[in-house]
């Protein structure tokens, strides 16, 4: 028991735990749509392309946190609009457009940060997160924006469901598909910015898709998938933080590794179950 309680005596650990639980819930609810609509590459790219926003916020705000948040959000929105504009106005396919924007923005971010003397330390924080450095105002920002994201997903639940399952039905039902698609992009962008401090830019995609994919293997209905994904993500966050505390591993990496392990176990269990079922079936069919 003391193993579990001891780290909690440090306020930075407590704040970190609250942060990973918020991020886990927000990421997995939005990540469910990322997985179901096959947008994993887009999510990864969007996470990377907020780096110039962070860099500008960092240079302008001289270390203050709040400007980072807004500049990162702006960079994410500019990138997702840019991707859409390129793939719509040229014959270039969407994944190529994503690649171009993502690499270009990421390079711009690195270039901007490299102008600062303490370059490597700062860059590492942005790339891999620093969940133990989360402050109380950071938590408020995460809580409010994370809450808004989840609220929006709940409000437009039916509409997002139809749009993801059957876009043609969405058209015949006169749903404003273009607006809803853009709204989803804004939700993904906001989620990424909210989660930035926990796992950082480079590992962000894991928070978006790994818990959601784990839940996808086990669930038959969308609300169940979202709930399970949120549990897996928050659990990975908490376990990851403890592992990082005791083993001295980087916290972002520990969180992502835990979540990968849960996925691997679920996958193995699932495959085992399926082979058993098909074996039993083949025995029956022989009789």
């Amino acid at each position, binding site marked *: 028991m003391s193993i579990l309680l001891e780290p909690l005596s440090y306020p930075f650990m407590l704040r970190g735990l609250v942060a990973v639980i918020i991020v886990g819930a927000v990421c997995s609810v939005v990540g469910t749509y990322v997985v*179901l609509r096959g947008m994993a590459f887009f999510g990864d790219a969007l996470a990377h392309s907020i780096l110039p926003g962070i860099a500008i916020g960092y240079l302008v705000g001289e270390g203050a946190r709040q400007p980072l948040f807004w500049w990162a959000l702006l960079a994410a929105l500019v990138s997702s609009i840019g991707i859409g504009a390129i793939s719509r106005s040229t014959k270039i396919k969407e994944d190529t457009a994503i690649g171009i924007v993502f690499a270009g923005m990421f390079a711009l971010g690195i270039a901007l940060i490299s102008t600062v003397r303490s370059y490597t330390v700062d860059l590492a924080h942005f790339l891999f997160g620093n969940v133990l450095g989360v402050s109380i105002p950071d938590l408020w920002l995460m809580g409010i924006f994370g809450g808004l994201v989840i609220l929006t997903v709940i*409000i*437009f639940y*039916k*509409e997002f*469901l*139809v749009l*993801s*399952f*059957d876009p*043609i*039905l969405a*058209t*015949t*039902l*006169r*749903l*404003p598909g273009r*607006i*809803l698609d853009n*709204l989803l992009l804004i939700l993904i962008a906001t989620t990424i910015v909210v989660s930035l401090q926990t796992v950082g830019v480079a590992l962000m995609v894991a928070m978006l898709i790994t818990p959601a994919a784990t839940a*996808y293997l086990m*669930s*038959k*209905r*969308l609300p*169940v*998938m979202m709930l399970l994904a949120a549990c897996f993500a928050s659990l990975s966050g908490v376990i990851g933080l403890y592992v990082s505390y005791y083993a001295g591993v980087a916290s972002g990496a520990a969180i992502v590794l835990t979540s990968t392990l849960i996925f691997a176990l679920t996958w193995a269990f699932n495959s085992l179950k399926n082979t058993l079922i098909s074996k039993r079936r083949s025995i029956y069919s022989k009789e």
Partner: protein
Amino acid sequence: MDIFKEFRKNNRLVTRHDSHIETGGSVVRISGVSVYYDGNLALDQVSFELNPGEQIAVVGPNGAGKSTLFKVIVGVLKPTEGKVDVFGSEPGGHICIAYLPQRNQVDWNFPVNVGDVIMMGRISKLGLLRQPRRGDWEIVRQALSEVGMQELITNQISELSGGQQQRMFIARALAQEAELMLMDEPLSSLDPQSQEDIFTILKKLRQRNVTIMVALHDLKTASERFDRVLLLNKHLIGFGKSDEILTAERLVEAYGGHMRLVPTPEGLMTLEDTCCDEGGNIPE
């Protein structure tokens, strides 16, 4: 808030569409419609009209533009030229059109059960922010019992057979209260019994005056089971009673080399689209 405005606009249109039934005349009026798809001509100057309650078979070789035609009527694709008029307005001006997708274009692993899919047909009637109520679930159950699937309401969609998948989409169209149903290859790769089940449902829909267009491969089914046949290969080759339309001359025009003509004692032809045989059968 743009999005709320958009939703409110839709709700107005939803209430408006209810009045079209009394206007009579044709359900669908297509005049001079051409569609260019990625620079290729997919539909060429197609014009026709459908009467209320008609059941139409749409036949033609692969790539003849059957799906494109459906997408234009549904409003997913805008025609490059020409005018599409459904229930007296542009496509998208009403929510009583149902498009039943080809089964291989659906993600059957999507985490929804049969009831969830049927309920999707109701969401415009529900409106924004409202959860389905008991009455909506009653409509869902009714729609499912119409197609003989009431006991499958909680099944995950991946557990359904091909025939059940198709009937589920018909039930969704019923829950949507669709008055025009467009079915894209509903019979392909179904066993004879499942095909028969679909025709039983089509017969019921006839009594409700639902207008139906079905894209088909099998010309024999098209001629036996439908009121009129629409023969398409980019342009409209013929539209009318099957014995007038499925003539050797017209079929050669539609299918070109991809066809087998087999004369039968009654003088009828049994004809197949042999594009799937890799073009090995070229008729004399």
